[in-house]
C-alpha cells in the first residue's frame, strides 16, 4: 500500500517533471524550434521534380530520397552538392539538386504474387511520421480481395558511415501464401534483404526488410 502510494507520487512527480520540461522547451524559442518536426532542411513536402504528390527526405549529410507517394515508390536518390542544399524550393515547388544515384522511371508498380499469379496493386498514401531516429511513410496497397499495409522508414543517420543509401520496409496483412514484389526494374538497382540480412526476392513476413542501393 505504501509502495503503491510512493509509486503514484513518483509517477506524479515524474509527470510534473515532464510537463515542466515541455513548458521550458516551449518557453525558449530556439529549443522549441529544434523540437519541431519536419525541418525543411531534412524533409521537403512540396511537389518534387514535377511529381505532384511527392516527398523528399534527407539521410545523413547529403543523401536524399525522393518518393512518388501515389506509386509508393522511390523515384530518385541523389547526393546534394558539397555544402549546398539538395532541394531547391521556388514558388512552393521543389527541384532536386545534386548527383543522381538512382532514377526509377517505371510504369510498373507493386505486385502481389499468389498461387502462381501476379496482381497489380493500387497504392493509397496514408501519411508520414517523423520519429527521433527515422522518418516513416505509410501506404495501403489495394488489390481486388483486400489491402496490404506497407511502412517504409529512412534512418536519419545511416547505420554505418559510408554505407550505401538504405531504407527499410515492412508489409503487414499479407494473405497466407502471398508475397509482395517490387517492380522488376527496381531489382537491378536495389538489394532486398530480409530480417536476417540475407538477400530475398519478395516480402513475405511482417518484419522490417532492407533495401540498399547496389
Amino acid at each position: 500500500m505504501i509502495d503503491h502510494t510512493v509509486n503514484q507520487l513518483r509517477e506524479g512527480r515524474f509527470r510534473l517533471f515532464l510537463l515542466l520540461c515541455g513548458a521550458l522547451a516551449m518557453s525558449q524559442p530556439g529549443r522549441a524550434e529544434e523540437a519541431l518536426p519536419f525541418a525543411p532542411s531534412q524533409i521537403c513536402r512540396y511537389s518534387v521534380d514535377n511529381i505532384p504528390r511527392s516527398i523528399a527526405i534527407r539521410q545523413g549529410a547529403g543523401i536524399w530520397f525522393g518518393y512518388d507517394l501515389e506509386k509508393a515508390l522511390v523515384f530518385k536518390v541523389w547526393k546534394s552538392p558539397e555544402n549546398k542544399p539538395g532541394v531547391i524550393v521556388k514558388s512552393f515547388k521543389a527541384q532536386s539538386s545534386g548527383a543522381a544515384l538512382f532514377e526509377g522511371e517505371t510504369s510498373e508498380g507493386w505486385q502481389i504474387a499468389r498461387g502462381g499469379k501476379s496482381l497489380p496493386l493500387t497504392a493509397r498514401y496514408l501519411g508520414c511520421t517523423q520519429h527521433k531516429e527515422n522518418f516513416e511513410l505509410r501506404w495501403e496497397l489495394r488489390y481486388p480481395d483486400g489491402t496490404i499495409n506497407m511502412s517504409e522508414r529512412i534512418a536519419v543517420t545511416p547505420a554505418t558511415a559510408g554505407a550505401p543509401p538504405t531504407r527499410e520496409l515492412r508489409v503487414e496483412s499479407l494473405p497466407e501464401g502471398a508475397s509482395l514484389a517490387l517492380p522488376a526494374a527496381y531489382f537491378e538497382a536495389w538489394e532486398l534483404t530480409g530480417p536476417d540480412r540475407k538477400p530475398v526476392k519478395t516480402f513475405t513476413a511482417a518484419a522490417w526488410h532492407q533495401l540498399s542501393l547496389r
Partner: protein
Amino acid sequence: MKNSLSALAFFALTFLVPVSVISEELDLLSTDIFAKGPNAYNGDVLEITKGRGATIGWYINAKKAEEVRVSIEYACAAPLNQDYQLSFDGIDQFWKVVPTEGKDLKRVELGVFPIREGLPVLVLLVPPSGTKYKHPVRFRKLIVESKIPGNLTRVQAIKEPDAPVSSPGFGSKLSQAHPALKVRDLRDENLTLRVSGMKMRTENELILTTWDGDLYSLDLSAVPETGPPPYRRIARGLSEPMGLAVSGERIFVTEKNQVTELIDEDGDGFFETYRCVSNDWPSSMDYHEYLFGLVAKEKYLYFTASVGMARRGIDNFQPPLRGSVFKVHMDTGATEVVAGGLRTPDGIGEAADGGLLVTDNQGEWLPANKLIHVKNGAFYQFRSTAPWHPLDVPKANPPAVWLPLGEIGASPTEPILFPSSWGPYAGQVLFGDETFGGLQRAFLEEVDGVTQGAAFRFSQGFRHHFHRLAFTASGELYAGGIARGSDQGYIDRVSGVTRIRYTGKEVFEPLAARLRTNGLEIEFTQPLAENTGWNPAGYDVTQWGYQATQTYGGQKVRHRRAGVSSATVSADRRRVFLEIDGILPEEVLHVRISKLFSSESGEPIRAGELWYTVNRVPADLPGEVKEVPSGSFAQVEPFFHFTKGDPGQVLFQTYCASCHSLNGTKLVGPSFKGLAGSQIKVKDPASGETRSIEVTADYLRESILDPNALLAEGYPENLMPPIGAILTDTQLDDLVDFIIKASPKP
C-alpha cells in the same frame, strides 16, 4: 404576368432602339458588335486570334417567342485545339471550328435556340479563353433565322444608366472602419503570417496556418496591451495549407493536394505525424490547384478545390474533379463530390440552415464574384475542355448572391456567420476579400426553396486584406490577412492578424432586404426619421443579369434603371417596401439609398447601398403599398446628383477604382497619379523585353483592350481583368479621356 408585361413595356419605352434590319434572316455583323476586344478588323471581317477579353456580342429582340436557328459565316485555315462557345441568352452551345478551304467564307449551322418574347436577348460568340492562335478565325457574321417574318430585330448597344455621384458607401467603397468596431492590428512586424487557415482550438487558443506552411498558436489571454502577441509555431513543413479545422481535439488541414490530420504522438505540443486523410482526386503541378477552407461537421470534412490556371493560354485542360466541393470522412477518408463547377472558391463556411456557403472569384465562367449556398449535386458553371465535371449540366445553378466586381468584391474569401453577440447582424454572413479588402456582409432568405439575398458594404479601414475569419465564444473576431505576393510587393498590403470587437454602438444603415412579388422590402437598423423614405425618388434602383462565358469576367446584361413606382414605410419605420416594376428572375437589383436619409434619432445613413440577387420571384407574397402621408414628399435638395457630364468617371469608378488609385495609393495595380504623359517601363511578355514608353491615350486604350500586351514592369500577366471586352468604343473613349484628365503628369 404583370411583371413580365411591365418589363416588356419598360424595355420598349426605354432602350429598344430597333435598326432597319427586319427579316426572316437577321444578320449579326462582326462590325456591329459592341466591343471588339483585343482583335482587329480586316474590312468587315474580324480576325480573331486572341481569346482573353474577346467577347463578341449583340442584343436581339423578338416580338414573339419562337425557336431560331443560328449559323456562322467564317473562314479558318487550321484546326483549333478548343471549341468556341455560343451563348444565346445564357444557353450554351459549343462549336468545334472546322478548317475551311480557300479564302472564301463558309456558312455552318451552330444550333437552334429558344428566344424569349419582348426582352433584349444577348447573343455572345466567345473564343477559347486565354488562348492565342497564329491562324485567325475570320468572322463576318452570325445569321439568325426566324420562322416568323419580321419577328427579329437587332437592338443597338444598350445605354448604361447614368449613375449618381458616388462617395464612400454610396456608389463606392467605404474608406473607414464601421463605427461599431474596435480594431487592433496584431501584426508582429518581425513575423510574416500570410494567414491561410484560422480556427479557435480552445476557448483561448487561436490557431492559424500560413501559406508558407506553418501552424501557429496564439494564447489570446496572453496578448499584451501593446507590442507583438506571443505567436508560437507548433508545426511546419505543410504544403500550402489553405484550410484548417478543429474537431474536438483533432486538427485537420487542407494542403496543396491532400487533406491531412496533424497528430501529436507524444503529447509535447508539436505534431510528428501528418496523416493523409484523403487525396482521392487527380492532381497536377498547376500552381493554382489549391484546396480551400475546411469545415468540420460531425465526422466529415468539407472543402473546395480550385481549378488550375497555368494551362489557360495553352489548352485549358483541368484534371478531373477540379472545381468541386468535397466531403471526406475524418476516419475512413471516404471521399464524395458534393458539387462542381467552381473556379477559385477561396472560402467555405457553414450556413445558418446547417448547409454550406462558398465564395468564388470572378473570371472564366464567372461574370462576377459569387456567394453560393451549396446544393448537393449542383453545378456552378465553370467548365474546361470536354469532358468536364461529372455534374456538368447545361443549366447551371445560380449563386445565392452575385458580388459585382469592383462594386462589392474582387476576390471574396471565407464566409462566416455573425454570432448572436453582434446585435442586429447576428445570423448574417460576414466575408472578407483578398483584393477589395474590408468586410462585407450578406443577408440570405429562401424563396420557393432557393436561397438568395443581398450583399451590403460593412467595413473597410483595416491594414490587412482578410482571408480567414474566426469568432471566439465571447464574440471577438480574429481576421487573418494574406498578401498575394510578398508583403508590400506589387500590392500595398501586408499579412497578419487583426482583432475586431463589436462595441454594440447603434449605426443607422440598411440591414436586410427581402423580395416580394411586386418589389423589395428593405429593413433598417433603426427607425427612419418621420416623413422619410416615402418618396420613390430617394432610391436609385438599377437591374441587370449575367451571362457566363468561357472568357474572363463578363458584362452586366440588360443593365437598366428599374422603375420604382412607390415606397411604403412600415408603421415602426424600420422597413420600406419599394414597389418595383419588372423584377425578373436571374437578375440583380442594385439599390442606392439617398444620403439625405436619416434615422429617428437624427443619425445620417451609412453605407446606403445593397445588391439583391433575384433567383426566384415569390409567386404570392406581395408587399404592402400604402398611401403616402401628407408632407412626406417634401424635398428641398435633390436625392441624387448625376454625372452625366463625365461618363468616364463612372466607368473608372465601376471598373478601375478598386485596383488603380488616383492619389498615389498602391492598390492591386499601379496608381494613375501623374500617369498621363509620363515615361513608364513595360514588359512585352512575348519577347520578354523591357522598354520605356510614354503613357498616351493609345497606350491606355491598348492596355484596357489587351492587358497582357505591354505589362507595366513588376506586374504579372493576367492580373488585370480584360474589361475592354465589355466596353463599347464610346465607353472606351470616355474612360481613356477620364484617365488622361485625372492623372496629369506633374
